[in-house]
């Protein structure tokens, strides 16, 4: 009896999520028709794509910078907490890191805008001077530091606690028997980590990274505050580029009701959906190839 009720409840929760998502999808698609269809001209997918692709690339650049910077550091910090720090300290440190996930993005944005951006200006100048033959560092360096690179760094700082938190919990869950067996066989601490901890935690690490990526892809306010949005450019050190959430946040409040602009903004929201979808599918696929270490099967 209890079993039936409980599994029924669990199933119900899952179905509720599916239903919500269907509603969101219907809502979005319904409202974004105007972006790809004009009554006089019929389908205008080409115009929409022209509008959307720089934003898609900008979003990917910012998230990629954030991931590249944050993932190694986050895994390192999680390892430090779980396996290196003195046990008395490690809980407090973990607690502090969790806390950092909670700083509102407005604050990160304000920090990036008023502190980090200006701090990075000399670096941009130096990069431009010495490495301007690489397209990434071409273009006139920003005088205010409000670039896609700064936005990426801010995003990295924002997602660092998320990835750390998930990884740490997984690392701590590593079966003690495995760890002790490895140490007993004479492995150094690092060898123990690569042999016992990482294989066990691989799916978890990827899950944490994806969670961070989700946050980075969807982050609005921090990017909107830190970046000077503009045309798509390969340069990381000059003003330009924009991300989808920032574009929505900056454009939506003033978009006239029922206009093409409003539809366009909702439609790029849908595009962001699809990007997240692809990214997550890839991640799931990677995880599924290494399922054998998961504890529950």
């Amino acid at each position, binding site marked *: 009896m209890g079993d039936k009720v409980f599994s029924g*409840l*669990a199933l119900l*929760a*899952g179905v*509720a999520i*599916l239903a919500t*998502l269907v*509603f*969101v999808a219907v809502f979005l698609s319904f409202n974004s028709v105007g972006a790809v269809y004009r009554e006089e001209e019929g389908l205008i997918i080409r115009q929409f794509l022209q509008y959307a692709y720089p934003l898609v690339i900008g979003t990917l650049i910012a998230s990629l910078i954030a991931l590249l910077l944050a993932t*190694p550091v*986050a895994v*390192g*910090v999680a*390892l*430090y907490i779980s396996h290196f720090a003195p046990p008395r300290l490690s809980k407090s440190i973990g607690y502090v*890191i*969790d806390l950092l*996930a*909670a*700083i*509102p*993005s*407005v*604050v990160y944005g304000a*920090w990036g805008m008023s*502190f980090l951006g200006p701090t990075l200006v000399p670096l941009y100048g130096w990069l431009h001077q010495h490495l301007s033959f690489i397209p990434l560092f071409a273009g006139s360096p920003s005088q205010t530091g409000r670039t896609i690179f700064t936005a990426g760094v801010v995003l990295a*700082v924002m997602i*660092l606690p998320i990835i750390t938190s998930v990884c*740490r*919990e*997984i690392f701590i*869950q590593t*079966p003690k*028997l495995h760890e002790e*067996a*490895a140490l007993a*066989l004479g*492995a150094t601490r690092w*060898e123990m980590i*690569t*042999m016992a901890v990482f294989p066990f935690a691989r799916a*978890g690490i990827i*899950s944490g990274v*994806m*969670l961070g990526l*989700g*946050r980075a892809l969807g982050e609005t*306010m921090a990017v909107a505050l830190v970046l000077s949005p503009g045309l798509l450019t390969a340069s990381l050190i000059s003003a330009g580029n924009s991300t989808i*959430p920032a574009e*929505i*946040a900056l454009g939506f409040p003033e978009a006239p009701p029922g206009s093409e602009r409003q539809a366009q903004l*909702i439609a790029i*929201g849908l595009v*962001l959906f699809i990007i*997240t*979808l692809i990214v*997550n599918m890839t991640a799931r696929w990677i995880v599924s190839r290494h399922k054998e270490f*998961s504890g*529950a*099967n």
Partner: protein
Amino acid sequence: MTQTQQQPMPTSVQGPAGPANQHAPAPASTPRPRSLTQRHMPWWVSLVILAVSAVLGAALSALMTFNMAIWFILTAVLYVIISYGVTRAKVSRRKATDTLWKHLVYLAFIIALLPLVSVIWSVTSIGIPGLLEPGFLASDMRGIDGTIDRRSQEEGEPVLGGIRHALVGSLLITLSATFISVPIGLMTSIYLVEYARGGPLARAITFFVDVMTGIPSIVAGLFGAAAVGWFLGVGNSLGLGLPTRSTMGITAAIALSVLMIPVVVRTTEEMLRVVPNELREASYALGVRKWRTILKVVIPTAISGIAAGVTLAIARVIGETAPILVTAGFIVSNNWNMFQGWMTALPVFIFRQFQNPTSPNFSDPSHQRAWAAALVLIIIVMGLNLTARLIATFLAPKNTGR
């Protein structure tokens, strides 16, 4: 990682003999150590290395433009490299690799701390004066307008106004959102991990939960407003006498749940999955029903991770601005009723005070309120986090050798 990946292994544990032997030179060429303990370097060696790399770093950074940051980075990099070299030459290659990675992990920790400390420091140092303003937490913004702020800034009068209304709004909205999302999210991950085991429905749910993590927050807000508006419309046409307008606290809570649920599902799912099967099997073997096993064995084992996941989920939404503004509005006075009237949340308050100061020309009082409110927001999250942790510690099984 690659090493373990390439080899199919019967167990997840592999003796160091495996990979070490493949690369180590033939045993004949290396003399066996006399004793079982490895050679150690004396404790002062690392200090010497640190000093050497600091000097070298200073010299190198002086060649460019001397700057504390560059000096620090160079010193760290040099220290890591030199100690690797020294350990490798003096002790062993394996020990050197271990040292290298140990240093890299420490370095990661320090790198992570720098920006985080900088953020925290800027919030606290700017926020505390505002927080200590008498009555900051007890007042709302009724009667506060540009003329009053101007007087504060020009004549040095105390900054009036406070965040009581935003505090109440934020707590109510966030807690309601948590009460909606945590049961749904947790039950979903229980379904995914314990019941479905990779069936088509489970795959669909996992897939769509992933999609949900990518919903831009403003879209969640619009969706929340539209959904509640539609629900109220249908309810009223059936003569239920519901309010006609959807702008109220509960709408914001629903919109935030859309953002929270995927975070809860993703983290708790991962935490449930790593609960060893032996525990479940042991419980079944004792004749315990499945649902009791889940409630009494699986969840308590994973509770610390679940608590961390819930904290993350709360953290994800407690700083949201746009969805709350469109779903709950913005008021200057206090409202305790989730189902009637507008509400203000802390992040909305912070954002508005930052971006459109109450007095455009005399923005210091507004900024002071904004930073102080940000500090309060962080303290609230700290409190919620602590509560989650305490619950977790209370429920977690005593430390057994897992």
